[in-house]
């Protein structure tokens, strides 16, 4: 792990999908086993350049998510390293049994990319808005479940999977995320990143909730509360040690996720805290609801995925500290 934080958090000018595509092209040039699959969303994912560069290594399976996962698993049994993409809900809940049996149970080597996590599905609405994708994948034994925060982290994680073996689920925002990390930062799967130190409470988050968490920490500072912010991009394997350390050192935890709290980051951290060092905990996320259509800004407020909500929950958790 070699983390360099940007001085100021800004919007990334390069879309996540373009970074993903360029990274795969670069990897594929050096490794003939890299293959790409999609279920009729190559254009949405910005992968046409990959197809142009490596037509024989591109398998657009059409609108057949189940078949795509099985084909990816079969390809990996011949030594290929498949990256299969579709929208998050279709990459997970729609194909859970194919991921479970054909990929994970069969101990094959497949990377699954689910785009448009949670409210970033925006105008595609509730049918396309996965608040459960990470949960679905977490329950499948051996699957590594990741939510990169920005383009720099995405590139590093995608590159790392080339040398690793197993089933990986990576959920990502296709378009413009914020940029938190300087180019060249590297990350360890299974290790959270402390973005800001603090002593009164620890806020754990991933994806789009990282910026909200950092903003919340600034607001809390004004109220005299010192909040530690941890980017827990790796939901499985989870960083048990860091979670316990934060529980011991700050005595209170808040989680923030663009996902259902049921079986989400809140559940994952709660089960760790309960078995290591129980402390008061509050959660920000989706509370057993379906998504709905709207702009991301509207949905952020509608589902209370905001810095203000994190501040409220932090004040509450601190009031519960003995």
């Amino acid at each position: 792990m070699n983390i360099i934080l940007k001085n100021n958090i800004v919007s990334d000018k390069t879309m996540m999908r373009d970074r993903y595509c360029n990274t795969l092209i670069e990897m594929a040039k050096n490794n003939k086993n890299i293959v790409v699959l999609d279920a009729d969303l190559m254009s949405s994912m910005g992968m046409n350049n990959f197809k142009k560069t490596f037509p024989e290594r591109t398998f657009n399976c059409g609108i057949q998510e189940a078949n795509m996962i099985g084909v990816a698993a079969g390809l990996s049994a011949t030594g290929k390293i498949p990256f299969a993409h579709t929208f998050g809900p279709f990459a997970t809940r729609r194909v859970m049994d194919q991921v479970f049996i054909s990929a994970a149970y069969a101990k094959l080597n497949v990377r699954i990319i689910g785009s448009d996590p949670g409210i970033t599905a925006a105008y595609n609405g509730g049918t396309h808005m996965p608040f459960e994708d990470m949960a679905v994948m977490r329950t499948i034994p051996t699957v590594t479940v990741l939510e990169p925060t920005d383009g720099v982290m995405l590139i590093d994680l995608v590159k790392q999977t080339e040398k690793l073996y197993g089933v990986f689920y990576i959920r990502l925002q296709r378009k413009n995320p914020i940029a938190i990390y300087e180019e060249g930062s590297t990350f360890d799967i299974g290790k959270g990143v402390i973005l800001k130190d603090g002593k009164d409470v620890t806020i754990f988050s991933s994806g789009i909730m990282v910026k909200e968490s950092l903003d919340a920490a600034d607001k809390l500072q004004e109220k005299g509360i010192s909040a530690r912010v941890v980017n827990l991009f790796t939901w499985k394997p989870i960083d048990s040690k860091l979670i316990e350390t934060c529980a011991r050192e700050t005595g209170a935890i808040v989680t923030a996720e663009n996902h259902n709290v049921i079986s989400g980051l809140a559940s994952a951290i709660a089960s760790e805290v309960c078995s290591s060092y129980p402390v008061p905990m509050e959660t920000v996320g989706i509370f057993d609801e379906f998504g709905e259509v709207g702009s991301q800004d509207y949905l952020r407020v509608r589902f209370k995925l905001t810095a203000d909500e994190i501040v409220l929950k932090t004040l509450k958790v601190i009031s519960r500290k003995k």
Partner: protein
Amino acid sequence: MEKNIYELRYFAEQIRVETLKEFQELGFGHVGGSMSIIETLAVLYGGIMNINPQNPKWQDRDYLVVSKGHSGPAVYATLALKGYMPMEQLKTLNKPGTDLPSHCDRNHTIGVDMTTGSLGQGMSTALGLALGNRLDKRNNYTYLIVGDGECDEGQIWEGALSAAHFKADNLIMFVDANKQQLDGYTDDILSLGDISAKLVSFGWHTQSIDGHDVEAIWNAVEAAKEAKGQPSAIILNTIKGHGCTIAEGILSNHHMAFTKEKMQEAIDCAQKVLDAAAKAWEVST
């Protein structure tokens, strides 16, 4: 390899007897669907497939995906007879800690190329194997066995469309058309219509043969290899439970329980057929 029909018939009956012995040891099992694919397994492992039991992971080998994974016991008997495992291991079917589970598992059984059991999924993994081998310019084949009942699954038809689109002519699928599924006759549960005509309309080369005739199976595979630019299907007209006297002709033979004595009757009958096949082979040489 030259085909020797008498030898293949003998091999098939050997597989049948050994499979029934596995079931006898256990007292229950998926008898019906194991019996119906035995001649196909005998032809594949008796000369069609390019394999090396001493080097089961050899990359240039032919692959087999038994998507109707509950036919595992028949596959295991075949593999044991080919030397992939000691014959005694067949007695461990479904016993605690076994490497021979009900449904085929590539991580447990040496010689099993793909994990199956959730019906329909072998279609896609077999296609993936075929496409991966083609990318690496290997001149091998991926064989796939699906059940007719299994063709209820949407994934079979996703894969059928996809295999034709990708022109996977290194994929040869057998459809074990034994006309029965767990709850009864396929026509009563979910009519499949003309599977061969459906596959033709999906862009497949198809043949329909007697699935218990080893010579017909061998010839059909040879013909399938001649079909270029499209995947090939061989519809096996079979009888569920074929050759097992306590299963054949019984509607509920998908999974059945029996006493050791009852199964011994079936084994004795199958042994007689095996002895006759041995004699016929001897006479032919």
